[in-house]
């Protein structure tokens, strides 16, 4: 088996596959000289899980065989990386294989820390405790919402970076509308307990979302972090992040967004910076110390919201800057922190938030995107999945 590749990519998620596809589209010289290391057998389009949890999409469409999305001409090494040796341009896999490279692209994604909340793993998928963050359990979210007979519905946002910062509230808006449609809204108290200081970071969208929260009469508790779930007792323990005090609240259903972190094999390596994320330049995406190492996606330390849309803009930057280095030219591709969060506010409404490093809107549409729109809902539900599978993963969008 080949043990040296011109380009070695850690992670066959949206970031890794996009970079591989873009390089291969640029030159056939990369054919059979790019490898993607990832132990996964399946590839998931996770943005759909919000709609699956809200009963508006089928989860099966979010899952594909990994081999069907690996670009032709790329090797898929189905193993886990356990150590990096960037001084010798090598990585080591769990099976003991040493693989060397000319260029390394690190894109392993973000790791969900289910153990970060006491009692969560034991009760997830029963007792009204649900979470959209796993393919296995996402159906249970809709089951819980559909069968809800009224009472306390709690939604959480953890004290850690998360993939798609808007997702914890999207499912709450869908659930609230479902409760109204099912005639149980009047008997229901909907609460959003978030570790963040406000509903959104970008002022323009924050104002719009505060309007949504008011209209839907959702109770908010900011700077609170879920620390424990007692499924049988239907109780949740929260910590006030400003005072350090804890309080317990009862629930009839709770949707938990679990805490997330950098994968441990990355966090423990010399490639990691603060927080365990890969330490890259915020504009060139080149590693701060190793010139032949690049990082992108959720595992990077880029100070922007971790979304698929951000990756869509980061992937061409990484591919083009690698090509520049191979040609001996200066790196010219530049990432401005663009990210996007399509915030579903109901079954036919969505605010399409797009912004950059400065938290300034960077909108693609010729109209005010802070307004809830049905057209943008259809963009997310009906078109973005198609664009993802056939455009982004093919390196053309």
């Amino acid at each position: 088996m080949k043990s040296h590749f011109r380009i070695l990519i850690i992670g066959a998620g949206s970031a890794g596959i996009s970079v591989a596809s873009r390089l291969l589209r640029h030159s056939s010289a990369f054919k059979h000289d790019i490898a993607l290391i990832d132990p996964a057998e399946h590839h998931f389009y996770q943005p759909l899980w919000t709609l699956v949890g809200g009963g508006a999409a089928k989860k099966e469409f979010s899952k594909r065989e990994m081999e069907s999305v690996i670009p032709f001409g790329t090797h898929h090494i189905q193993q886990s990386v356990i150590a990096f040796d960037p001084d010798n341009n090598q990585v080591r896999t769990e099976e003991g294989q040493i693989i060397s490279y000319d260029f390394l692209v690190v894109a392993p994604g973000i790791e969900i820390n289910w153990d970060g909340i006491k009692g969560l793993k034991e009760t997830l998928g029963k007792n009204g405790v649900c979470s959209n963050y796993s393919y296995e359990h996402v159906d249970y979210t809709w089951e819980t919402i559909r069968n809800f007979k009224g009472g306390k519905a709690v939604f959480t946002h953890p004290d850690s970076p998360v993939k798609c910062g808007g997702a914890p509230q999207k499912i709450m808006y869908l659930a609230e509308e479902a409760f109204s449609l099912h005639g149980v809204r009047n008997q229901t108290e909907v609460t959003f307990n978030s570790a963040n200081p406000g509903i959104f970071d970008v002022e323009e969208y924050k104002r719009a979302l505060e309007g949504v929260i008011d209209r839907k009469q959702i109770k908010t508790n900011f700077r609170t972090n879920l620390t424990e779930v007692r499924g049988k007792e239907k109780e949740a323990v929260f910590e006030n992040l400003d005072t350090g005090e804890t309080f317990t609240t009862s629930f009839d259903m709770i949707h938990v967004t679990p805490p997330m972190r950098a994968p441990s094999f990355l966090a423990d390596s010399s490639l990691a910076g603060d927080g365990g994320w890969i330490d890259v330049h915020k504009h060139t995406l080149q590693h701060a110390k190793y010139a032949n190492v690049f990082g992108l996606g959720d595992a990077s330390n880029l100070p922007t919201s971790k979304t698929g849309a951000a990756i869509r803009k980061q992937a061409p930057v990484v591919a083009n800057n690698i090509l520049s280095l191979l040609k001996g030219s200066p790196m010219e591709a530049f990432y401005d922190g663009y990210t996007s969060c399509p915030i579903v506010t109901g079954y036919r409404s969505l605010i399409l938030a797009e912004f950059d490093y400065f938290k300034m809107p960077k909108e693609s549409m010729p109209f005010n995107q802070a307004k809830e729109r049905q057209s943008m809902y259809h963009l997310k539900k009906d078109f973005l999945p198609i664009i993802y599978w056939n455009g982004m993963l093919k390196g053309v969008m």
Partner: protein
Amino acid sequence: MTRQAEGHEPRWAETMKHPEVQESMTYLLRKLPEIQAAVESLDQIVQFGQQTFQDRKSMDYLEDQISLSSIDQESIEAFVKLIGKIPVLLKLVERIEEMATFAESVWNDRESLAYMSSSISQNTLTQKSKELWEKADHIQALAEQNKDEHISIFTVMKWMKDPSVQKSLRYAKATLQVMNNK
């Protein structure tokens, strides 16, 4: 007296003793057949060029061909301009190529096509028309059921108070106003 005269080895012989020089020499010797072949083919090209230039008939033929074609000063200027536009054209071609790749990928992706078709069948317009058809069936059934019922002028006057009738009449009035203004 020179060092050579003193019995020392010449300088080139000393240089030859360096391992890196020996390595390069070995490499060059190994590559000699390839270098020879390359030089021969270059020589053939040069000879061909020289002979073509000396061949009066071939040169006249080429000149005739060029003079008979539509290539003129304007074509040359356009060609130069086109070269200047190539970077923009390339971007355009790349975009078209990307769109074609995307379209081809969607066309060959059964799962995406199935997803699109299910989205279309769920969309608002389809839903609305379905609801209308359902209502139409219900209306027809109700009308059939009450076919013996007598509708008096008082019944019609009563309908006039119905909010949906009032709404329709308001639309009718607004339509008439707009038509008259035009």
